[in-house]
């Protein structure tokens, strides 16, 4: 407060402050870069392990946003990233599908649903457990309100519909994968829109 402002001291102080601060941040960025990546990678691995049976190897197809999980030589299943618009924004799921076309389990990767309502899609066990072993050839993939077999979260029909839509999209991708002899030849130019890339951290 005490210093009288002049052009030189203003430029000097502001410049010096910015220099010191950016140096600090650069250093902090370099130091935390690895842990941040490790945390993101660990999160993905955990999500895949949650939605698929035991596997030993996993391969990521970044272009089309799905993981192929193998146990030795055998195909365990696909974990497919699927994102739709929920009530509060993007709702991004990872849907594990075994080779017979049955949903093994689902996990929420990112969401911005209302706390206490739609956000229950990550905590409401009654809602989450019905996706375990959901067989789309037996059950109808729509919420009960729309004449299907998916029990919606109380007071969160929009979120439940979006969730169902995301699973349905993932099953669409799976159908395309299954019809292709070489999954690597799968191209993203299909009607089914899925999110590309995996990282959601900035």
């Amino acid at each position: 407060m005490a210093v009288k402002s002049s052009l030189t001291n203003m430029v000097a102080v502001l410049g010096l402050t910015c220099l010191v601060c950016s140096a600090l941040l650069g250093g902090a960025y370099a130091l935390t870069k690895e842990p941040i990546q490790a945390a993101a990678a660990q999160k993905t691995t955990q999500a895949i392990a949650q939605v698929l049976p035991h596997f030993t190897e996993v391969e990521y197809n970044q272009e089309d946003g799905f993981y192929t999980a193998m146990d030795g030589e055998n195909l365990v299943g696909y974990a497919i990233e699927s994102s739709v618009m929920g009530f509060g924004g993007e709702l991004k799921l990872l849907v594990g599908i075994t080779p017979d076309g049955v949903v093994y389990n689902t996990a929420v990767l990112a969401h911005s649903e209302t706390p206490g309502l739609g956000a229950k899609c990550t905590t409401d066990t009654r809602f989450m457990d019905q996706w375990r072993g959901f067989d789309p050839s037996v059950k109808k993939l729509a919420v009960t309100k729309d004449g299907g077999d998916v029990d919606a979260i109380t007071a969160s029909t929009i979120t439940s519909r979006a969730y169902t839509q995301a699973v349905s999209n993932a099953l669409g991708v799976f159908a395309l994968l299954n019809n292709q002899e070489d999954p690597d030849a799968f191209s993203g130019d299909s009607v089914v829109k899925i999110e590309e890339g995996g990282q959601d951290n900035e």
Partner: protein
Amino acid sequence: MSKMKLVSDGLVKNNPTFVLLLGMCPTLATTTSAINGLSMGLATLFVLVLSNMAISAIAPVVPDKVHIPVYIVVIATFVTLLQFLMQAYSPSMYETLGLFIPLIVVNCIVLGRAEAFANKHGVGESALDGIGVGLGFTCSLTVLGLVREILGSGSAFGYNFIGGNDGMLAFVMAPGAFLCLGYLMVLFNKYLKKN
């Protein structure tokens, strides 16, 4: 001013949430549960203490006309540091608080304490002031979060005690935030006047 008084002033007499009504945006938005309120409070406490100390140290050499930009740069630096650290070591907390961490930069509590206190006092006193106001903010947010969580989701600190999922949902959403804040403010100020 005694050291204890510096801290207790921030907690009670100058309580940022219930008395000064500063930082309302993160207060209303992040207090959907006690844990969320607590983490937001602690994040702000961290930034507040460090920025108060840094600003009180550099204040004597900062020319008057550029003091606001300089303070903002200092505050933004600490916030970004916090953001990196949270992303690296507490990613789930970072996800919950998400957007509100970068917004600490423009939280009027932080700049307010820099302007009103830190640039006129020494490093030690400013640190204590930061701790006091930061704790005041943390406590208010935790209490507000706790009340909203109990009414809205029937749980406290994530522990569900009504056995079901359904509380009075309005309290988890924005209108409930205003209602709870209003009533807590009344109670707090009534208590203050008595003493």
